[in-house]
């Protein structure tokens, strides 16, 4: 019944045999031990599970691990480069873009995609870009400021 899959996660290659119904987020968390990606709703409404699959931000709670066979995946744990925080991670720290931190990994991934696509987004564009991610603590304003901070830093 199990199917063999292989994928690259944060630059490391993995091969496993998994049940076809195994959700990608559970593969990352339970099989690979990458628990930075969180689950908040199981219905792709909150975005806590946002990761990159082949460069696209997707919600890993509604994708099967077998669908990601052969894919290149980045999770929150893979965002740092050479021990340095990604500008978006720095931005969230600088501008108090998080409180309880639970939505934060997914929020940072979604926000990173926003500035990947638009180097200098307006506040309106940032808010629309974060439409798929819920935060219950911050009221979003500091998150919007964090994304602005990161966009500026990335442009330098």
């Amino acid at each position, binding site marked *: 019944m199990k199917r063999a899959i292989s994928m690259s996660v944060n630059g490391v290659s993995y091969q496993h045999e998994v049940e076809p119904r195994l959700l990608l987020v559970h593969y990352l968390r339970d099989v690979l031990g990458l628990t930075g990606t969180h689950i*908040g709703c199981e*219905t792709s409404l909150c975005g806590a599970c946002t990761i990159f699959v082949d460069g696209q931000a997707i919600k890993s709670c509604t994708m099967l691990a077998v669908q990601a066979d052969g894919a290149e995946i980045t999770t*929150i744990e893979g965002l740092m480069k050479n021990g340095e925080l990604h500008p978006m991670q720095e931005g969230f720290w600088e501008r108090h873009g998080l*409180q309880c931190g639970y939505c934060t990994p997914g929020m940072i991934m979604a926000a990173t995609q926003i500035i990947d696509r638009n180097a200098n987004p307006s506040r309106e564009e940032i808010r629309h870009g974060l439409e798929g991610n819920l935060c219950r603590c911050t009221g979003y304003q500091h998150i919007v400021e964090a994304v602005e901070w990161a966009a500026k830093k990335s442009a330098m």
Partner: protein
Amino acid sequence: MANYVGERVKRTEDPRLIKGLAHYVDDIRLPDTLHVAFVRSQYAHARIISIDISEALNAPCVVAVYTGKDVAKIGPVPCASALPGLKVPDYRVLAQDKVYFVGHPIAAVVARDAYAARDALDLVVVDYDDLPAVVDVEAAAKGGPVIYEDFGDNIAYKLTAGEGDIDAALAASDHVLKQRIVHQRLAPIAMEGRGVLARYFPGEEELTVWSSTQIPHLLRTQLALMIGIPENKLRVITPEVGGGFGSKLNVYAEEAMLGWISMQLAKPVKWIEGRRENIQGTIHGRGQVGYVETGCQNDGTITGLRYDVFADLGAYLQLLTPAIPTLTGLMLSGSYKIPAIQINVTGCFTNKMSTDAYRGAGRPEATYVVERAMDLVAAELGMDPAEVRRKNFPAADEFPFHTATGLDYDSGNYQGALDKAQAIIGYAALREEQKKARADGRLLGIGISTYVEICALGPSQAMPAGGWESATVRIEPTGKVTILTGASPHGQGQETSFAQIAADELGVDLNDVTVIHGDTGIVQYGIGTFGSRATAVGGTAVFIAIQKLKEKAHKIAAHILKTEAAHIAFAGGRFARAAAAATTEASVPVVPVGESPAGAIPEPETEGKSSLTIQEVALAAHIARELPPDTEPGLSATYFFEPKNFTFPFGTHIVVVEIDKETGDIKFLRYVAVDDCGKVINPMLVDGQLHGGIVQSLGQALFEEVVYDDQGQLVTGSLMDYALPRAMHIPWLELDRTETPSPVNPLGVKGVGEAGTIGATPAIVGAIVDALSPFGVKHLDMPVKPEAIWRILNA
């Protein structure tokens, strides 16, 4: 040494969170963990005829299935509030002969794999005999089907409170305005649901429970009583907690079940709440339907206020369920001088999940009632709503201010906050603009809320299980400062703000301070984080513990420096002879971890010095060869702080909206908030709390509503149906503040965790009502949806 208090210090808790390396309950992995899933009632009210678990027990990977009869020895889920005449249903951890709400746990399935546990739920066959459901709270009070036959009716308690002769006051008023007010049920929706991991050590007879809770110590006490394990053999750990908002200020059936199952099977067991379970089975907030009568004179003076309220308690009483409406009663004076106030509460059982403390917990209801009442008075008298409010404020020199609800407000300057907010928004010009807009056929509305709230819960006399908070502060031999706080922050940032307090008081670097919380195996007993109390009560405990520690260090320093204690002073982290206070003597750096010479504890270098850093004193206190007579070695102090009163933060929120005449859509044009939470430790964290609170308030005003149908079925059972505010719904929030210190604690802080949630809702609804006032609208029920507005515009 830097002054940290009052500065915008970046959070020390953030690096682990932004890297994805923090540990919430589900991120903790123990070998051989079994997974638990709960069979939950599909009916709001039904008799259980039979439960067949045989097929589930034979399913692959299933280890055990438990039903109500197996758990008779586990004590009931506790309710901590004792009101006179309160009826308390027997709340067992699994349903016995009946189910009382959709989501009521009936059976627990334990399997080696989380997917297998979920599969096996479908194999447990429950045969129900459906009973009529009690859903509407006012109907529940009147009669009809009775949920608990032994009780005779659905009324859990009735309570009347207040001072002054309300009947006489209303009779003597020029006007008495009546309004029905609905505070709809809300789901707290912490982004991390609840979760429990329990591990029993059969040899040691010790149980460790990791739970996503706001109250580790209170939970330990209650779980020990429920499960029947000695409290000192039970350790509760709250790892990272992904939001609480009151929903984790509770003791839940699942927490006891997990501990008990682990003891039965001698294996680690884990349960992670799904979002659908979360909306069914984690407490809701609000749920009041009330009738307010407001008396006023022709000049706008408020003469009296009566609030008759039906509180929708749900089927069972969770930890604080019946106490929440009493907080509403306490805050019915708002920020006004009202000579006579009365609240009449009827707390009713319904076939729904329990209501309990959700951010604000009874105070948003009070603020909404009072602020809506002020708007109704303004509309009736043709006065500006700001002027009605101003007219009824106590003056800044009337504090402490006694209310007809029996409280003594500690300090305040309500007019100051209103003046500042009006100045920022340009109130007079805005009203002119509104006149012009109306003339042009535009629907522009301005809403005001001048709220006050009750925080820093609270004096133990007024609390069900102690209202103090504890702290231990110690300086380790290497000079590192450790703070153990009984508060249990979960996103508020006290790892940083408490470190700011300690770093300033001890004159050390912020990075030398570590704040530890949420582990009953490490931290002295504490109460927890809720009711905007952690900094005002817990932070004060830290502050006073530091003073005790410094007193001891002072004596040791004097002894080592061979002088009288009175001859040395402590400044900038250093004890120095008064004459040598300005010495430029090089400070001995704190030994970085892992760089201690040859791994040995360094010898104190105290010989011939004229001053000592407190960190040098700490080392000397541990080496203990140079202590004054009768001095305990070590450098540590513990303090349990009992506040003498609550604190009363306040502020003014002004909102400007424009309604789209075609669609009824609501657009925010401005949002100005001037809040006063006393002294501010970290303005960045305060802003964050206000933003979050305001947006939850906006959620109540516009979007959120837990809906049960007339059969008691939960209609808004997932985030597809329960609408939460998203980033694009929110206006830019223009925050400012006034700073009126509290006299209740030496830090002068009041608390800010709930202010936004309490202050914002009436301002938002008031703005919408104001926009629609040309249509004769005086009040609207929440959540105010474009559809309802469209119907008014097209009536």
